[in-house]
């Protein structure tokens, strides 16, 4: 597990240095080192309970690290209370004020900042347009649907134009179409206003489409930091490979540079540098398996056991002679029971060091 930090090239906005967090003796964050650049869109991605919200709350000032430093714009802010941090949050459970209506909720931060009345009105209106809820000013919070509340929560945070916006699964309650729209809106807003986004999601597709940088976490530990393409194509371990997109994970043995054995035969690959004979995990993306109706000329043969239509592609399960099950994504369909040929290009075979302590 490498905790690579990405380049310190552009101006740094936030830096987490060796953050450790315990709740009543229970460690929930370990050795968190993360650098976030100005105007960067960073996504924390990981399964439920891996510490995403806790990390966000430490940046927002609602939780204090057991050890480690939080740096903001070059200054240590561990002891700065949340209300003095130039950060706004879209909370996972909205936390809208029930005694205020939509307008008053969104205007809350502007009122505190003693902005001028006309300016407040205009900004609230713009924010409501942004989240596609014009004319909702007078509505009481409890009359809104979950998705509408979530959008008000987004508006209430962005209207303050903070330097950093923390978003804790801000789109979780929206339907697919609204979600896609809001993803675009948020992305546009981040670019236009030059806000740094720290975004939490456990939806890997959302993470890949929106982010400049994805931080994959598991059990309070950062697994990998990288661009979406980097994370997807070069997962650093089996967990990341499995969590980001679908993967076929097979046991293999490294023979020599660019040669690996698995599924009962040898394959040319592009990985180097393992010890000859070293056991490795072989990771293959289901869409990288080339299938053909001519099994003889292919590298492997398998029998299709199930087919599910997924919209753009078919998802098929195929069983090899050795009894391994492969998942295949393909635009061509082979019916269940048919024997197919499967081939792999060398650069689509990813070799990973076997985890010492089981993942």
């Amino acid at each position, binding site marked *: 597990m490498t905790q690579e930090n990405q380049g310190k090239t552009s101006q740094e906005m936030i830096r987490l240095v060796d953050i450790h967090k315990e709740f009543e003796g229970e460690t929930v964050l370990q050795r968190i080192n993360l650098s976030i650049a100005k105007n960067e869109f960073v996504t924390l991605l990981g399964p439920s309970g891996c510490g995403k919200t806790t990390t966000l709350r430490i940046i*927002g000032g609602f939780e204090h690290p057991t050890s480690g430093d939080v740096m903001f714009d070059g200054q240590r802010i561990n002891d700065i*209370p949340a*209300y003095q941090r130039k*950060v706004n949050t879209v909370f996972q*459970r909205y*936390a809208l004020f029930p*005694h205020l209506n939509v307008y008053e909720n969104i205007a*809350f931060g502007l009122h505190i*900042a003693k902005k001028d009345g006309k300016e407040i009105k205009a900004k609230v209106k713009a924010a409501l347009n942004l989240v596609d809820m014009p004319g909702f000013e007078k509505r009481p919070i*409890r009359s809104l649907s979950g998705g509408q509340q979530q959008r008000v929560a987004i508006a209430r945070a962005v209207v303050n134009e903070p330097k950093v916006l923390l978003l804790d699964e801000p789109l979780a309650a929206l339907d697919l179409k609204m979600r896609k729209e809001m993803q675009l809106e948020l992305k546009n807003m981040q670019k236009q206003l030059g806000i740094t986004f720290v975004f939490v999601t456990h939806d890997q597709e959302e993470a890949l489409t929106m982010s400049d940088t994805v931080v994959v976490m598991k059990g309070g530990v950062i697994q990998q930091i990288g661009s979406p393409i980097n994370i997807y194509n070069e997962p650093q371990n089996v967990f990341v490979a499995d969590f980001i997109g679908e993967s076929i994970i097979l046991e293999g043995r490294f023979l020599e540079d660019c040669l690996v054995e698995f599924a009962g035969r040898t394959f040319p690959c592009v990985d180097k540098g393992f010890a000859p004979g070293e056991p490795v995990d072989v990771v293959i993306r289901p869409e990288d398996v080339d299938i053909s109706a001519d099994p003889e000329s292919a590298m492997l043969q398998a029998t299709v056991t199930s087919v599910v239509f997924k919209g753009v592609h078919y998802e098929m399960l195929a069983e090899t002679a050795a009894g391994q099950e492969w998942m295949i994504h393909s635009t061509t369909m082979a019916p269940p029971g048919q024997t197919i040929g499967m081939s792999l290009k060398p650069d689509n075979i990813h070799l990973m060091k076997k985890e010492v302590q089981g993942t």
Partner: protein
Amino acid sequence: MRRNWSLYPYILWMVLFTIVPILLVLYYSLLADGGGFSLTLSHYARVFEPLYLAVIWRSILLALVSTVICLLLGYPVAMILAASPAKQQFSLIVLFVVPMWMNFLARTYAWMSLLETNGIINTVLGFFGIEPLSMLYTSGAVVLGMVYNYLPFMVFPIFTVLRKLDPSLLEAAEDLGANPLKTFMKVIFPLSLPGVLSGITMVFMPAVTTFVISQLLGGGQFTLIGNLIQQQYLRTYDWGFGSSLSIILMVIILLSMGLISRSNAYEEGGIL
């Protein structure tokens, strides 16, 4: 409408022990003196004589002052209770409730022996060469007695509301730049209003009707409307005047409760 049979015993209870007595009091307040069944408003006319108006006014004033003091003292107490960790919370509440288990009269007598001219406080002051203060039989003593006895009725409703307050709302306020004072004014206090209002009602009502506290701690000097009513029933046997005073008192309470519930624009319904 579906009939709910289980409500009937309750309705019967209400009719027997609430509605009938009120109607009886109303009847007596209108019944002319000297036997017979003729009705009159003369008892009510007496209530508006300056002498009695002064008593009513004093009762309202003392009850208001006590209610305000209870609120000022009780709110912070409720906040401390609500903010303390669950384990401590219980023992703090017990500490607060135990004095209430002592008989109301005993508690008030205890205050008398504290406040008397040669009572405990003045004895202690005497050691420091301070002249004895006359504390008993003042309006201050009456207010003190009311605050002491009714403070828990202010604390508990506020505490109950504060304890249920979603802490993430406070974080949201802080996130939007509100310091602790602003958070209190813009979020905590408005959201605790239902508790504050029921606290006010629960203190004001017994305070405006009390006759024991004013009798013991106020001596003869501080006749409140409660004392007046007690006198009519138990000493002068003027049930007609006593009943009309009771009805007026009820109207005062109903009016103030109506005022309070109307100012409660934000309703609790399903939010807290």
